[in-house]
């Protein structure tokens, strides 16, 4: 049942983490591709249970930042700590173990096109040598969470863009990660499908309180996340009453490889920075 994801006990590793210690710490991180600086002196932290929305114009280094957080690329300088481990100094072999605690949703879904939806979602579980019966149960559970259990036997080429994103989310959450990285999960989708994806992210946030980083170009998606909550009784996303804002959702705004804002939703709305005011209006 999808609700089972809500009732899953936090993993042992998650329990072991001190709630006070940030899950992700970027400290003075810079990276240059060829001669062009992509990120310069980036420092921020993401605390346990926090949803950090990364906003900014295209080409501002957001996806690079996400790949850095997962150790897929290494920075030229600075350190990145995830769950207390320095991913900039780790060997690839050790990173594979750390990534067992991280789920990632890629910009273009990045589903394995030669595998069925079931095999895509089960990929990590197969790697972890989980028994087949348990794999099937967890795959069905994850697909029910994204409301795609009917597509279990299909191949990625048979799915729409929105369905692929949902499968990608199912693949990211099937191993019950402690941190989820969403790289433009609504990019290139129509507004209705985007709202469906955001609803799933809100559901994941409010049901499991999983720490997450989310990149988006769409301000409406970002504010939808900040101003809504998931009602487990009705199974629907609904606005937080009295114009309330989700306290666990924070913002990081990047422009030309630099942080121009790091703070809460209210601070972002009340900003006096001219560029930022123009960007969010």
């Amino acid at each position, binding site marked *: 049942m999808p609700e089972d994801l809500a009732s899953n006990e936090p993993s042992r590793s998650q329990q072991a983490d001190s709630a006070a210690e940030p899950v992700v710490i970027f400290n003075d991180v810079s990276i240059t591709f060829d001669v062009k600086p992509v990120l310069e002196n980036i420092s921020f932290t993401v605390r346990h249970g926090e949803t950090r929305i990364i906003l900014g114009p295209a080409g501002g280094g957001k996806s690079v930042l996400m*790949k850095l957080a*997962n150790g*897929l690329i290494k920075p030229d300088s600075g350190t990145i700590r995830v769950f207390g481990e320095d991913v900039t100094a780790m060997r*690839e*072999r050790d*990173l*594979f*173990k750390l*990534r*067992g605690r*991280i789920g*990632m949703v*890629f*910009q*273009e879904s*990045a*589903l*394995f*096109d030669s595998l069925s939806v079931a095999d895509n979602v089960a*990929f*990590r579980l197969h*790697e*972890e040598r989980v028994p087949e019966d348990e794999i099937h149960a967890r795959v069905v559970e994850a697909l029910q969470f994204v409301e795609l259990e009917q597509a279990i036997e299909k191949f990625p080429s048979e799915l729409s863009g929105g369905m692929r994103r949902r499968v990608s989310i199912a*693949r990211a959450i099937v191993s019950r990660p402690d941190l989820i990285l969403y790289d433009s999960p609504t990019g290139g989708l129509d507004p209705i499908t985007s709202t469906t994806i955001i609803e799933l992210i809100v559901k994941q946030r409010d049901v499991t309180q999983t720490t997450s980083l989310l990149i988006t170009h769409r301000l409406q998606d970002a504010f939808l996340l900040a101003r809504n909550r998931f009602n487990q009784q009705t199974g629907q996303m609904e606005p937080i009453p009295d114009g309330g804002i989700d306290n666990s959702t924070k913002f990081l705004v990047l422009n030309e490889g630099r942080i121009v804002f790091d703070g809460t939703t209210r601070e972002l709305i009340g900003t006096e920075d001219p560029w930022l005011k123009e960007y969010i209006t």
Partner: protein
Amino acid sequence: MPFVSPEVFAKQKIAAVQDYAVLCWHAIVNIFSGPRYWADIFTQMDSIGVGSTPIVVLTGFFTGCVLALQSATSLQEFGSVSLTGNLVALSMVKELGPVLTGLMVSGRNASGMASEIGSMKVTEQIDAMRALGTDPLRKLVTPRLYATIFMLFFLTIIADAVGIAGGALVSISLLGLNASSYFNNSYRALVYGDVVQGLTKPLFSGFIIATVGCYFGMKTKGGTQGVGKSTTQAVVVSSVFIIIVDFIVSRAMIGIFGR
């Protein structure tokens, strides 16, 4: 193609050699530690070995046919048409069988590996694999390497056999030679060193096909155009390497066995 300074060009080439060496090293040693992807190895054996059998059989057979036909003209001048069997057997087993099989499998599979892995690279599937805690070298490259080496060895034996059979067909039906004499001469022409030489070459060719195909796949950049470029480069580089290494192995074997 943009012009770059000689220094940048040299650095790029050295970095490419370094990356290729690292890929080869990991592809080889990954088999000695877990996890091992046996199912992927068998799938690749089927795709590379069984899938290449028809082209290898056709190429080997007609190469043997044409070899017999062409050599008979020259041998006739010396009154030695009966030695056609010797010539076909030696040529096929020592040289043409291994090289042509390598080139045909390279054309079919180095391109296939480069395009498949390259497509995965440009659609972020390789990154997704890493993000899901799987080593792409272990999952994609190592199975292709061992499957290619193993299957190319047997494909070469098949090419040698059908090549000699093709030579027999021409010698008997067109040149009027006696079948028993042809096969007897073919058998007598080959010594231990010739067979070792002919069966050592596919081990190197298999290594080249898999590593070059996977290397260009893993280095693919720039969308579908990049995939096309990687595919072309993989076939060109692996074919040239096969011929160069063939020469080196031949020289080494002649040094060892004296023929």
